[in-house]
């Protein structure tokens, strides 16, 4: 009896303002409050509130048989807290139905696993606290930023006590196998991986409104018939996508909400099919094979690797510099400074610096609040220069004895 597993990603970064060279040393506030609030409001109205209402309606209509999983980044939750408590409340309402699972991720939606395991762990724990606080759940399934994944991460996550992990179903590692089963990450004991079915996921997330697509316009019954094809040859249909697909990437006018409205009914017309949260599916199904991913993969672009965040010299330099600060930042013991540091780790900052398609003139492929990847890098590095100075000055004031004690505390933790 195959299960459809929806997982939606909800994320908003704290975008940095156009922080000029001339602001260094003068302005210690880095975020573009206005833009962040503007975007949050826009996406809240177009997507979050509407889609949450729809999901709640579907759960009620199908009497608890429709289930979904969410991963909400800590930076998104924080922005809801500050500016859109109504959105936060609508997620809390969903959590009370018992049909919604919240997954674990790094609080800052960061690349920390690549640069610092300690920092990674710290952020996963921070995020867990936040989820517990609002939704009264302790996450059992982990998804890393943009589905960045490899064997080592799966192993690390297993040791942290998770029972499953989410990743992209990458053909070069799957070979001729389908993503529609649970897999055992190579080198682990019992953790299970959910592999995104990118074909069907992207039919909704990317192709839905594409008038040049030969399946346009896509209706729920057609899509359900594609899902039903795995009957007898698959156990999980993993439909993973950004939540902003609904209403923001695919506008309401495209009919995406009607599509969503009819989909559960159409899928459950086949009596073998049901919906499960990722934890339920992990409990229900056994792993069927080993999924061996020695190199990092992700769900980004055609390459499905790290190249969006870490391919050009600017991205690498910026990331290297921010993680080099780890010891000193923690040494300050200053919560605010540690938080600023965390927010600067958000993967979006590096994504804005991406020049992969820049030279092809395909510059609109990327969403960015800045005019160019150079601007993204320049503002980031200007902020970093100011932040480094602040950290240096703060650390200087800490007595040497205290320093060694603090180091020990950090090590003990």
């Amino acid at each position, binding site marked *: 009896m195959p299960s459809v597993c929806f997982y939606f990603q909800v994320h908003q970064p704290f975008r940095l303002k156009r922080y*000029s*060279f*001339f602001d260094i040393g003068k302005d210690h506030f880095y975020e573009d409050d206005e833009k962040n609030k503007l975007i949050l409001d826009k996406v809240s109205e177009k997507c979050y509130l509407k889609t949450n209402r729809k999901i709640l309606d579907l759960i009620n209509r199908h009497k608890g048989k429709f289930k979904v999983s969410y991963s909400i980044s800590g930076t998104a939750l924080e922005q809801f807290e500050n500016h859109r408590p109504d959105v936060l409340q609508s997620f809390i309402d969903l959590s009370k139905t018992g049909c919604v699972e919240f997954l674990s991720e790094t609080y800052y939606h960061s690349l920390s696993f690549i640069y610092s395991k300690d920092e990674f762990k710290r952020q996963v724990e921070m995020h867990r606290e936040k989820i517990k606080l609002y939704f009264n759940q302790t996450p059992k399934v982990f998804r890393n930023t943009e589905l960045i994944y490899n064997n080592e991460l799966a192993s690390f996550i297993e040791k942290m006590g998770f029972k499953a992990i989410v990743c992209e179903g990458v053909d070069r590692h799957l070979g001729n196998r389908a993503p529609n089963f649970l897999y055992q990450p190579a080198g682990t004991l019992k953790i299970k991986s959910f592999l995104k079915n990118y074909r069907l996921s992207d039919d909704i997330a990317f192709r839905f409104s594409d008038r040049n697509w030969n399946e346009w316009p896509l209706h729920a019954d057609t899509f359900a018939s594609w899902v039903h094809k795995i009957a007898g040859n698959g156990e999980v249909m993993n439909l993973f996508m950004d939540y902003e697909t609904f209403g923001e990437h695919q506008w309401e006018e495209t009919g995406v909400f009607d599509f969503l409205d009819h989909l559960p009914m159409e899928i459950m017309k086949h009596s073998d099919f049901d919906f499960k949260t990722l934890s339920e599916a992990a409990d229900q199904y056994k792993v069927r094979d080993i999924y061996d991913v020695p190199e990092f993969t992700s769900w980004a672009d055609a390459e499905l690797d790290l190249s969006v965040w870490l391919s*050009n*010299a*600017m991205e690498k*330099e910026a990331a290297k510099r921010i993680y080099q600060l780890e010891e000193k930042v923690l040494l300050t013991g200053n919560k605010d400074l540690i938080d600023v540091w965390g927010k600067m780790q958000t993967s979006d900052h590096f994504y804005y610096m991406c*020049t992969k398609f*820049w*030279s092809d*003139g395909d*510059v609109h492929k990327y969403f960015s609040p800045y*005019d*160019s990847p*150079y601007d993204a*890098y*320049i503002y980031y*590095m*200007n902020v970093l220069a100011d932040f480094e100075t602040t950290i240096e000055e703060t650390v200087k004031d800490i007595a040497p004895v205290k320093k060694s004690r603090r180091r020990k505390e950090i090590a003990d933790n």
Partner: protein
Amino acid sequence: MVIEPLSKQAESTAYVPKVLMLGWEFPPVINGGLGVACHDLCIAMSKYSNVTMIIPKSNPDFVVKNLNLIGLNTIDAKTLRNIGHADSYRKVKQVHFINTHLNPYYNGNLEPHHDLQNLTSQYLKAIKIGDEIVEVFQIDDLYGGDVIEKVTIFGKLAAKLALSLDFDVIHAHDWMTMIAGMEIKAKTGKPLVMHIHSLEVDRGGPQSKGWVYQVEKRGMEYADILMPVSNFTGHVIHDYYHIPWSKIVPVHNGIRPVEPFKSEQMFKEKMVLFVGRLTRQKGPEFFVDIAERVLEKDQNVRFVMAGTGEYFNPLLERAAQKGIAHRFHLTGFLNLDKVRKLLSIADVYVMPSLSEPFGLSAVEAVQFGIPAVISKQSGVSEVLNGSLKFDYWDINRAAGYILSLLHDPVLVENVKADAYKDLVNISWDNSAKKVIDGYNKFKLIPEPV
């Protein structure tokens, strides 16, 4: 002088369009930007078409391969007059010399005109060989003034000459040849393409409404399609001349490849370079303001302006007033070799133009591996992704970019690498293909067989 079919593709079945070009500057007579651009475009187009180029003045010793180059100065007026009666251009002889004393891009610096009257008379006298003298005078009366007379008479003569030539399409460059283009279209009914390298609105500002503006406007209205050297200029044409976008086909300029080199620094400070005429259009006073802002943060920078123009003295004064004269250098006019020498030692190139149809100098800087900080009000900003772009009035932003480039080798490396990728696409061959595509799209030439 005999016109021969030039196509290297004569054996191929594809139709080879015949293009009649009308130019003003052309090497080696004038080596300005327009002349070089026309020359290089013609050469590139000769791969895809038969090009005949009429210019006011040519040097008979200057032969361009695959190009029929006709200087009106080399044609006997009597022969010209007889065109229409005679059968072919084969009878055209090199006899007469028409001097044209016009340098359209140097508004503030026109050459002395003491002999202009003579030249004009001489020119008129030449036309007087025969019966049609009246016609020339009439045109003179219509517009008055020497500049006007020149482009007008050029138009008359070129139109006469065109009657003896075989071509599919007329391709005129800038306002000096627009009257010629209109005359030829009127006489032959052939479609007219106007290639726009620079407009009066770029040079004189948006208030320009003088005679040149009127010629440009009328010419562009009369033309079948317009090929500005950038989308930016396309917008100027649309916004200031009210020409519909439907007949505007931007064709970006190309560039000649160079062998870049590096030279030893002359001083220990870093160097920020400006190359261009010191006129309003190029925004030189913004360069001074940007320099002042950069020097507030970093004294180890020198700012060099290569070029001359009516802003030379005011710029000197401005730099002195701001107290940055010790870091600010005006070189005056430099020849190509000296400009290249500067490019070989510069750290950052800045182009703060107010209205720059293309901006080849920025591409030349990129060829030398210098990161370019360029105004968004330029055509070149459309093809140089590997550059930092600012609105010309945004001094802070430009200064911030320069400071970042001077202090961050990673940024320099990245911008340079991206700019090198851009250079691959900036070629005259690409421009030529776009021109031919434009002819085809608007059905100005017979369909390819």
